[in-house]
């Protein structure tokens, strides 16, 4: 029963939708860690951008482009504040990042009350969600196309961005410089690279990615805003970045794994399993993934050491 085609295609379809926000955020984290700055505020950026997307959506009468722009702008502003504190004021990235995450939750709830006179959940018939794109092969392969229904242009954009960021980091001079900063800040500085400016710009730009992720949360598969809408996705994205070793392609597969775990979690809600158990699946998966990754890494290293010892003999 569980293994029939419709079930599988439903799981794939919801996986694809769950992957994009995590993927976008972990790409943002990857960019930042390549530039040698530690960004943990993706959670907060997502919440703020998801909120302002809904606010502009409501007051502009459902103008999607404006909402997306507002989301990106607000997320970039938050990232710029974060970058200013970390890079210019040398504040602790963990502390500033966590304060932004908790303050974002408070800021959105505060302004939700100011704008909409409600706390907790805001939903309105005037809100317009992102347009769902029907895949071009829908007529030829309706079964296959079913998996891609419900995807928006940001979902597709997130896949394109994997390639774009890969090319940017590994095939352009600018990307090379950014990676050089991440590898050795002092060396990059001695070569005349304006390290702090590069880091600041990279961090602010990574806000664009979190902004897009935020739009997906509040205007993607559902169009509403709910308190703590990011629900730990920003932290999961950080783990995805670690597992993917900050490489865009690695990050893509790690995000895919977390997308699957979220999709399976929400899918199992329809079975007899209790909601609390299924809801904790993504978080347990994150912990387990870090453990397995570390074991795998250790084995690889041991193997390498053994091989080099053999060569020595």
């Amino acid at each position, binding site marked *: 029963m569980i293994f029939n085609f419709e079930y599988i295609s439903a799981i794939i379809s919801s996986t694809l939708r769950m992957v994009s926000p995590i993927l976008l955020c972990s790409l943002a984290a990857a960019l930042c860690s390549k530039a040698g700055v530690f960004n943990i505020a993706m959670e907060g950026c997502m919440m703020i951008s998801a909120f302002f997307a809904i606010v502009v959506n409501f007051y502009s009468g459902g103008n999607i482009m404006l909402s997306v722009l507002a989301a990106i702008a607000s997320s970039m502003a938050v990232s710029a504040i974060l970058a200013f504190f970390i890079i210019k004021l040398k504040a602790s990235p963990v502390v*500033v990042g966590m304060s932004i995450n908790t303050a974002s939750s408070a800021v959105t*709830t*505060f302004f939700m009350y100011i704008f909409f006179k409600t706390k907790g959940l805001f939903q309105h018939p005037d809100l317009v969600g992102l347009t769902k794109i029907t895949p071009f092969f829908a007529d030829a392969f309706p079964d296959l196309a079913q998996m891609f229904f419900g995807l928006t242009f940001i979902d597709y954009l997130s896949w394109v961005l994997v390639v774009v960021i890969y090319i940017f980091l590994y095939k352009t001079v600018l990307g090379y410089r950014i990676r050089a900063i991440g590898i050795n800040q002092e060396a990059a500085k001695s070569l005349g690279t304006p390290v702090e400016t590069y880091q600041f710009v990279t961090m602010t730009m990574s806000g664009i990615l979190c902004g897009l992720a935020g739009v997906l949360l509040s205007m993607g598969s559902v169009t509403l805003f709910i308190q703590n809408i990011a629900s*730990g996705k920003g*932290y999961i994205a950080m*783990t995805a970045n670690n597992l993917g070793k900050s490489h865009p392609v690695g990050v893509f597969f790690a995000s895919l794994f977390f997308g699957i775990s979220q999709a399976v979690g929400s899918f199992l809600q329809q079975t007899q399993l209790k909601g*609390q158990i299924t809801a*904790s699946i993504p978080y*347990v998966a994150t912990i387990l993934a870090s*453990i397995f990754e570390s074991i795998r890494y250790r084995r690889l290293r041991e193997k390498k050491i053994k091989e080099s010892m053999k060569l020595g003999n």
Partner: protein
Amino acid sequence: MKTKLSIKNFFQHFSDISYSLIAVVIGLIFGAIIMAATGFNPIEGIFGLIKGGFLSPYAIASTFTRATPIIFAGLSAALAWGSGYSSMGAQGQMIMGAITAAIVAPLIKGPAILVVIVTLAASMVAGALFSLISAYISAKYDAYLLIITLMFNYVADYFASYLTNYVFLDPYALDKLAIQTQLIENGTIPRIFSRYTTHYGFIVALLCVAIIAFIINKTSFGYKARMSGLNPNFAEYGGIESRKTMYKVLLLSGAIAGLGGALEVLGSKFRYVDKMITSPGYSWSGITASLMSNYSAVGVLISSIFLAGITVGGSSIELMMSIPSEITLIIQGIITMLVTAKFVIRLPKFSKKEGAKK
């Protein structure tokens, strides 16, 4: 020479406090600006915050009640963060302590004092063990402690929610929507003054502040922990086994958080209510308090009372002026962001002084 040094130390200490005070003032100013921008009277708002939190016996009593769990979370954070382990696990450990208390207390038959002691001990063990899990994973598998503890916070919350929903749900509840365990009748912690909500848990918190201050400042364990927080490589070089210290620190910080959760159950709620630890954000307030006081135990006490005060004041201005109480969390966030930025503002000043001496 020696006196000079101590005077300098005093000023160094004083500047720590003054930076936290500046952060608090800037935080409040930002809060006022936000209130003004959203059409509220900022002066009345800020005054309301302070009045509602500190300026009447009732307000102070509510503030002390609110501060109790924050002090425990703050002590737990001061131990862990002060030793260089940025653990966010206090929330999960408090939840485990709270749910353990709610389960254990009704099971024990006997005099109230015995019930309280056994329950608190059980909760401390639960908190410590829960902390041990994340410490073990982080140490054994080189996983990032911050993320592991954050993930375990979600797991703990869902786990406690599952237990309250399906295993220990109060069968006699009048309100069927309330997700809570059975009321604890024997073994609750009494109030200090019958008119006010402050319970003896606050006294326990004061005792813990003294104990932790002693441990941090006067024992070799505290010294080792502080050293590994200041410079892990140097500590290792000086013969401090960082693994062992890490386990000890995190076990102790977990036990304290667990105790805090248990006292919240035995002293104020008398049962576990779903999300009772998560939604007030005790854990984050505790971490803020420990950062504001630069990981000193006595500082945690003062900062926790301040943070609890503006939170209590926040709910009172929400009632009186309909300013959303989240304003206090925004102020708290701004304060936290500013307190770690202080080091940079201070450093150039110090180098100048030393330069002048030479």
